[in-house]
């Protein structure tokens, strides 16, 4: 770049490069999951099946949102569905939880031009706002991924269904889950087994949670559907 603003970490990693939009917080929403009937799968003749789960649906407007979440008190929760309306910029994000939970959804997006009257704003060469000191940044502490059922492609014989495999990790600051992709597995209407993510302050845990049924039986499905992935974000100062 010939002009503009750049910022770097102590170790020389780019923070703000003067050209690329930064993820910044544009909205935070809080809802409590309720025990309700949630559509799951349908069959050849169009019969829609459902399951009774702790569930909530967030609705918000954004451009290209990237979401993070955390449930209060370490209750494990799972991003179930994330969809955009056919027209406009209305998005819905659905979550389920292993028990009733207060779920906080944090929406990160390209920062809108605001009437902020303080701080630093950084624009790219075409005049688009790419960083704004008045909005919290998505501060990335870690990226965690794994896969419960090894391999790639469709498997239908010889393998058992993975168990919960609960794991945990701790950080020195309060954290949330960013861009989480849940491992998922089902057969017919039971079991339904999905990644579930819990955070309590700086302590996180995650597992392949048996929401419905259990892991008895033979694994039938795409092995890579049991892959999970999330970013651990520093939530200091973000409520």
């Amino acid at each position, binding site marked *: 770049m010939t002009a503009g603003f750049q910022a770097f970490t*102590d170790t020389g990693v780019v923070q703000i490069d003067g050209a690329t939009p930064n993820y910044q917080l544009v909205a935070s929403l809080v809802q409590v999951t309720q025990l309700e009937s949630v559509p799951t799968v349908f069959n050849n003749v169009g019969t829609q099946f459902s399951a009774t789960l702790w569930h909530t649906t967030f609705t918000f407007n954004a451009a290209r949102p990237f979401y993070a979440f955390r449930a209060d008190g370490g209750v494990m929760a799972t991003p179930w569905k994330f969809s955009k309306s056919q027209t406009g910029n209305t998005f819905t994000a659905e979550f389920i939880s292993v028990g009733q939970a207060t779920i906080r959804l944090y929406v990160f997006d390209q920062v809108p031009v605001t009437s902020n009257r303080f701080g630093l704003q950084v624009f790219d060469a075409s005049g688009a706002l790419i960083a704004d000191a008045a909005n919290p*940044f998505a501060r990335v502490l870690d990226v965690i991924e794994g896969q419960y059922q090894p391999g790639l492609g469709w498997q239908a014989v010889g393998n058992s269904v993975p168990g919960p495999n609960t794991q945990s990790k701790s950080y020195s600051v309060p954290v949330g889950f960013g861009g989480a992709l849940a491992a998922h597995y089902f057969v017919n209407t039971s079991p339904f087994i999905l990644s579930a993510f819990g955070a309590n302050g700086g302590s996180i845990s995650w597992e392949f949670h048996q929401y419905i049924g259990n892991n008895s039986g033979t694994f039938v499905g*795409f092995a890579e559907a049991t892959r999970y992935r999330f970013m651990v974000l520093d939530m200091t100062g973000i409520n």
Partner: protein
Amino acid sequence: MTAGLQIWNASGQLMLDATQRIGRIKGSQHLDGNGGHVDMDLSDGAPFWSFQPDFLFKHINGNSPVPVVSISSTGIVWTYSSPPTGDYLYPITGYLFWGCY
């Protein structure tokens, strides 16, 4: 920190300093169930990707492959595994984001 940018919020809480890595969006695309790739310079940080699925479950036969994504300093590639049958095939669609942090 020895040098760099520091940002505080209105209540005086430090929100960013030079010890913290923040995400930058380099690209995004809605995946429609077909493999693809984008070549791009992702060498100025650790590349990351995130996939936000439109759905996880559809037809009861489970014929819903998920995108298998790989990323490097030169770009991002996604593929879908071959299905066991073409019947009631619903690949999982959704937004793929990538960038550096």
